[in-house]
């Protein structure tokens, strides 16, 4: 009996949190922030975007899921670049003391730089690409911002491989390639996937900033446009969408990560 009660509790308690947030929101819009649309008004102005999620009425007037799709594609590209570059760098940092001494200081300095700071540089870098400049600049920003957790976690993973495993590889005289594929890589995988999960979180954070500044269609671009068009209700729609998608992405990566943890 108490078991079902516990289950009911875990199912209902989050609703209490949502209700509290809605109340606070309602209260704010009725008192200190009269320009903040109430939850009800937000819903009324957003329903068209939610009920026709894939509609395309114009470049910057599309269903919310269609915008989300654009954003996801851009994130996927930037994230892929981050992993492809970040994983080997992480391995080198973990394997070679010399490499670590040379590059760790630069990494520590570049790591805390905000996406808003990288984006202009990204645009400048690809200025000669003409029409492609904003897309490439956005990809550059996503990749360079989301790369660091992958780099650092991989490096930590490589460094914490038990000496026992290395000894097995040495005692059997495995070649460098075999040692990498059969010992180093599998031993590092759990750390790598922790890095990948954190990187994905950052990549999704950066997308909004990138789209806002480049004006590309997507959730972030839509958000910025609606702010400029004074449609504040849809800003909230975008925020909720971004949060929800980010949550799902994190859960999915969490599942993948768990799968490799037990290996």
């Amino acid at each position, binding site marked *: 009996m108490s078991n079902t009660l516990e289950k009911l509790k875990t199912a209902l308690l989050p609703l209490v949190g949502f209700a509290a947030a809605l109340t606070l929101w309602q209260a704010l819009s009725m008192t200190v922030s009269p320009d903040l649309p109430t939850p009800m008004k937000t819903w009324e102005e957003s329903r068209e975007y939610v009920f026709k999620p894939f509609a395309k009425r114009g470049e910057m007037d599309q269903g919310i899921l269609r915008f989300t799709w654009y954003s996801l594609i851009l994130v996927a590209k930037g994230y892929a670049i981050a992993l492809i570059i970040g994983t080997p760098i992480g391995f080198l940092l973990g394997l070679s003391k010399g490499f670590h001494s040379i590059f760790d200081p630069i990494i520590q300095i570049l790591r805390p730089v905000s996406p808003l700071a990288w984006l202009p540089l990204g645009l400048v870098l690809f200025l000669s690409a003409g029409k492609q400049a904003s897309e490439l600049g956005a990809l550059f920003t996503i990749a360079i911002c989301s790369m660091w957790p992958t780099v650092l976690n991989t490096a930590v993973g490589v460094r914490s491989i038990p000496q*026992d*495993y290395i*000894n*097995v590889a*040495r*005692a*059997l*005289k*495995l070649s460098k390639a075999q040692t990498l594929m*059969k*010992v180093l890589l*599998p*031993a590092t*995988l759990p750390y790598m996937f922790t890095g990948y999960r954190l990187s994905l979180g950052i990549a999704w954070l950066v997308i909004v900033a990138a789209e806002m500044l480049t004006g590309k269609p997507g959730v972030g671009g839509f958000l910025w446009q609606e702010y400029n068009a004074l449609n504040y209700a849809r800003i909230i729609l975008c925020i909720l969408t971004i949060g929800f998608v980010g949550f799902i992405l994190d859960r999915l990566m969490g599942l993948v990560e768990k799968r490799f943890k037990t*290996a």
Partner: protein
Amino acid sequence: MSEYLIIDNLTKIYPTPKGPSIIVKDFNLRIKKGEFVTLIGHSGCGKSTVLSMVAGLNPATDGGIILAGRELAGAGPDRGIVFQSPCLLPWFTALENVRLGVDQAFYTASRTERHQIAEYYLTVVGLGDAANKKPAELSQGMRQRVGIARAFALSPKMLLLDEPFGMLDSLTRFELQQVLIDLWRRDRKTALMVTHDVDEALFLSDRVICMTNGPEAEVGEILEVTFPRPRIRKEVLNHPDYYRLRETLISFLNERSDLRPSRDKVGVEQNNIPHRNEPGDHANRPPSTPAMALTS
């Protein structure tokens, strides 16, 4: 008898901030082909260091090791190592762990052959049914069985066992000692084992090398163990010489392990003078130590 493994003036020195720390100094040992030799000594005396130098996992500071007529340089699958912790790779099944070594040692054999070799050794150690299990699904004793299978499956020139049963409870330890000795009996691989278990040393070995306490550990006394083979635990325990040998070992560990044959007996450091290793005497027994060889 031919000397199969020759360890000559093996020395290991680690540099420390307080100056060099000499772990092992001028360690000499000769092992015949097919002989099972055990190194025994207090923990920290450097016996594992000697073994890891023979394994090639730890470079010697000085001295040389010759195995089957060749000087050893680095590690390789010609020596089968059983580590104290089984050191299995957790992402591979028991069979794949054994295969990893077999693939290295028999790279010219076909896939099927290599698979069969790995399967055979797992069956011999009693894990035929658990071949496809991951180490996490196996008990500590079963994991060490896989470790033993992996070492034997290499068909190595010699076996190196580093306190192979140190992490097991005593019942499992007895069981695995039997597994090891049964497997060893098939082709009498030359074996060097490190242990601090007196009974284990007596049950398994032909010769027990007592190491003096570190630092600067060296060979203290040498005990010949001549119980008839194949050995059965009960018979060994009932052998008239068993308790005498056991007593000798324990009294060495308790009373004489601080003595240094190289200095205390000769007076001056004369490690390189060959009189301690008379020709034909594979044991570098200090001249004044009474012979403890037993004939039964």
